[in-house]
């Protein structure tokens, strides 16, 4: 069982950091507009951070490589990427990829 105090404190920390990031910049609009470093890092961050998070979220199914976990992951990734490149519909890509993953994982777990 997960300790409720640690869940609540994790939520509090995440909420505090997020709120600070959203509110504090209003107090520093002028230096913010001028900073070239911030603009350089900020433009490139979303792409890189999302890719790091994607790799991070897959680490459990990549090492060790096992048919029952790695195969569903690879197929579901192909479905998600292919569908998103084709239709550009985030909800459709996510749901189709997850559905394929759940189906393969559940079936392979029974076998």
């Amino acid at each position, binding site marked *: 069982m997960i300790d409720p105090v640690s869940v609540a404190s994790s939520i509090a920390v995440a909420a505090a*950091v997020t709120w600070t990031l959203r509110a504090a910049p209003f107090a520093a609009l002028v230096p913010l507009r001028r900073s070239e470093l911030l603009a350089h890092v900020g433009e490139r961050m*979303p792409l890189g951070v999302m890719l790091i998070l994607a790799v991070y*979220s897959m680490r459990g199914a990549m090492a060790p490589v096992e048919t029952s976990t790695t195969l569903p992951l690879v197929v579901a990734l192909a479905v998600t990427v292919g569908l998103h490149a084709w239709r550009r519909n985030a909800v459709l890509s996510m749901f189709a990829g997850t559905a394929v993953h759940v189906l393969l994982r559940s079936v392979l777990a029974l076998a």
Partner: protein
Amino acid sequence: MSAPAPDTASAPPLAPDAGDGAAAGWRTVMPACIAVIPLGLAFGVLVVQSGLDWWWAPAFAAFVFAGSLEFLLVGLITAAAPLAQIAVSSLLVNFRHVFYALTFPLHRVHGLGWKAYSTFALTDEAYALTATPDAANWSRARIIAIQAGFHAAWVASVALGAGLGTLIPPEVQGLDFAVTALFVVLGMDAYRVRRSVPVALVAIACAVAAAFLAPDDMLLVAMALFVAALIGSYLGGRRRRRTASASAREDRP
């Protein structure tokens, strides 16, 4: 850009049927509310499947109110990640919000309490829906209606997802792929904005290197390496520009 003074006297006249109250805000935010329902359902299901009580799901939605971070947070919490790791992950995942202050019409939201809520609820969607030039003249009621409407839709769909999640039998496995799918989709969308293969390769290299070097702190190490690489590329680029402009000056007769 010469923005008009943000007072009602100089605000341009509104179209007769447009209105500028909460109702106009609801109309603006409604498509975003409908669009976010599937993601909210998925997040609610994920919370329950991760072994947390169902009511944590609306708590995440109400207090953190940052979709992609919430998905990540569930995994960090079930892995018993230390608070420092949660703080740094939150900082990096939501760093993009720093730039939303540049256009968000907070000057129209009068009153400290309303300003506090408005900054708290400054999500990607709130930013996107107010990123039009005429938003600089919208009323407080209209702006708050957009943010509160989206907040309510997110919490409600997450709570519904958590309720549905309790009905899913344990034989069903692999729902956690929703998190991977979310980040892959967001990564592809980010690539459409910033078409940089080097940035993508460096990020993936940082993630893989961190997975081998520091498996227990993979996320922190990967993000730190990536930010260091971006700062390095900025400093390198600046030096190159400086040398280039210096040599250009010398070449001039």
